[in-house]
């Protein structure tokens, strides 16, 4: 009996988690301008529209550009920052460790507005490039934390040992430091990409004339809804799932080859 209860409980939780996604899928299959159920007529028109519009491509490209740059810069800076406080003991280390995560607690819309004022004070016109910086203010601390978790169990003497055994500095990086950091870099990178890809409050203030996908979705949901909005959300979700599965498979394959 407890077994039956447990599986019921699990089913309930999964249903609650996936219900909203399912409802978006259903909404995308309508041809009405309002979200309502049940549909009078079912249609895949929203999907064909999505793929035929130039606008949706541009939206995705802007979001992708921002997210990829944020990922790249955050992982590099995050790795360096994490090494600085996980490997070396220096004055102000513990203050740095706390200061670096503070921006996470700052409300994003306020941060976005503050950054916009900062840009205009400096005379920088906001665009997708300024959005990269804005996203990083919030995302870099998280990436640094994720990577530093990997570094805390790390014995830096391993690098000395590798040097001592004949490795050049470059070989030490390739053979010891990077393999050890790799899981942290990958999870940090995934975090950075997803947080940037789905960010709305910072993008609203800092992208200027460019529009990211979440911004567009938000404005269309608020004022000018069409099933295209749901269709894009569904496509995005499935694309992410497929990407995630591919990354996992790739990791498993490369590990199998290494081992």
């Amino acid at each position, binding site marked *: 009996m407890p077994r039956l209860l447990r599986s019921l409980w699990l089913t309930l939780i999964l249903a609650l988690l996936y219900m909203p996604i399912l409802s978006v899928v259903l909404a995308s299959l309508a041809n009405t301008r309002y979200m309502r159920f049940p549909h009078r007529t079912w249609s895949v028109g929203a999907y064909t529209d999505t793929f035929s519009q130039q606008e949706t491509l541009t939206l995705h490209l802007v979001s992708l550009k921002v997210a990829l740059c944020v990922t790249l810069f955050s992982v590099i800076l995050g790795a360096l920052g994490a090494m600085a406080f996980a490997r070396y003991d220096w004055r102000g280390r513990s203050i740095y460790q706390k200061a670096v995560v503070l921006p996470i607690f700052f409300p994003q819309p306020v941060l976005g507005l503050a950054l916009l004022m900062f840009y205009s004070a400096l005379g920088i016109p906001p665009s997708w490039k300024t959005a990269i910086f804005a996203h990083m203010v919030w995302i870099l601390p998280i990436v640094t934390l994720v990577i530093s978790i990997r570094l805390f169990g790390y014995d830096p003497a391993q690098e*000395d040992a590798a040097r001592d055994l004949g490795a050049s500095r470059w070989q030490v990086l390739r053979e010891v430091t990077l393999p050890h950091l790799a899981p942290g870099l990958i999870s940090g990178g995934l975090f950075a990409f997803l947080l940037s890809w789905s960010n709305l409050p910072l993008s609203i203030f800092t992208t200027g004339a460019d529009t990211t996908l979440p911004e567009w979705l938000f404005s269309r949901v608020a004022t000018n809804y069409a099933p295209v909005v749901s269709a894009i959300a569904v496509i995005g979700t499935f694309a992410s799932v497929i990407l995630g599965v591919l990354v996992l498979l790739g990791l498993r394959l490369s590990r199998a080859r290494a081992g």
Partner: protein
Amino acid sequence: MIAADLSMTQDSRPVLGQAALSLQGLSRSFGSLQALSSVSLDIEEGEFFTIVGPSGSGKTTLLRILAGLDQPTEGQLLLRGRDITRLAPNKRPTAMVFQSLALFDHRTVGENVGFALKMRGIAKAKRDARARELLELVRLGAEYFDKPVTQCSGGERQRVALARVLASEPEILFFDEPLSALDYRLRKTLEVELRALQKRTGRTFVYITHSLEEAMVMSDRIGIMRDGQLVQVGSPAEIYGRPDSRFVASFMGEVNILKVAEGRLPELDLPLPGTPDGYVVLRPEALRLEEGTETGAPGFAARVAEVFRLGSRVQLHLESPAGLMIAELPAETQIRPGATARVSFAPEAAHWVAE
């Protein structure tokens, strides 16, 4: 056991009468802290040299300089007459076993052992074969080859670390207290094995430890460090029998140190004619005991506070006019705590030190 293709280049072959490593006035300061002050020493070819000192005495700093992981602020380091003071660690024919062992924990035992060969661009099949040989040599066995190092026990990790440095065919091996984390019996076993390995390979070993007992078992010569300085260098017998300061003597374990002034031991009120002012060191086994309190016999009166039976001998804690003193007697000695005794020693057993 030395593969021909791995041997060192001409200019680093041993030369008769030349020190394997010559330390010439090595100093190292970190800001205002003087970690090493002018350490000079010649380490001979094929020697097992141990540096002993309490923590913070600069021995790890010294070893890191010898391995090239740190640079001295002053002084020179010569390897067989060649100046290697500024040579990068990966260019030196030396290898080190670290205190934490520093095994590559994302790799298997075999990959750890083969690392140095991989860095030299030696083919996988060849380095794997060599790694298996070395695992046999350190008594782990080739079946450990595929095991992740994270699944090895303390003693096994020790052997992996040893095999890993041997793979690089170093001319000189450095050891930074690698046995300190192990339990007593395993440590004893490995000490003996390490010594045997050193004899068999004929390589120069430089070992650092805070345990003089460990140093005595393994070393040809011992150097005692204190506050960044080498205070005494000698064979284990010399260091044990003729320590040249109270510091060295007390490092040897439990000894009795008594003040000498004007040809007397003022604390015990005993004459010690012809001895200059300073201190004398009395080993616990140099003390003789006679039960009872008859006055007139030579020596001083003491009360037995504690009796410890240590198997091969009996150790007594004595309450004497000079405070706590330690005596060691043969195991068959029958004496109980609380007994009073007359304690004496041969004057020649008292070893004099100036400070």
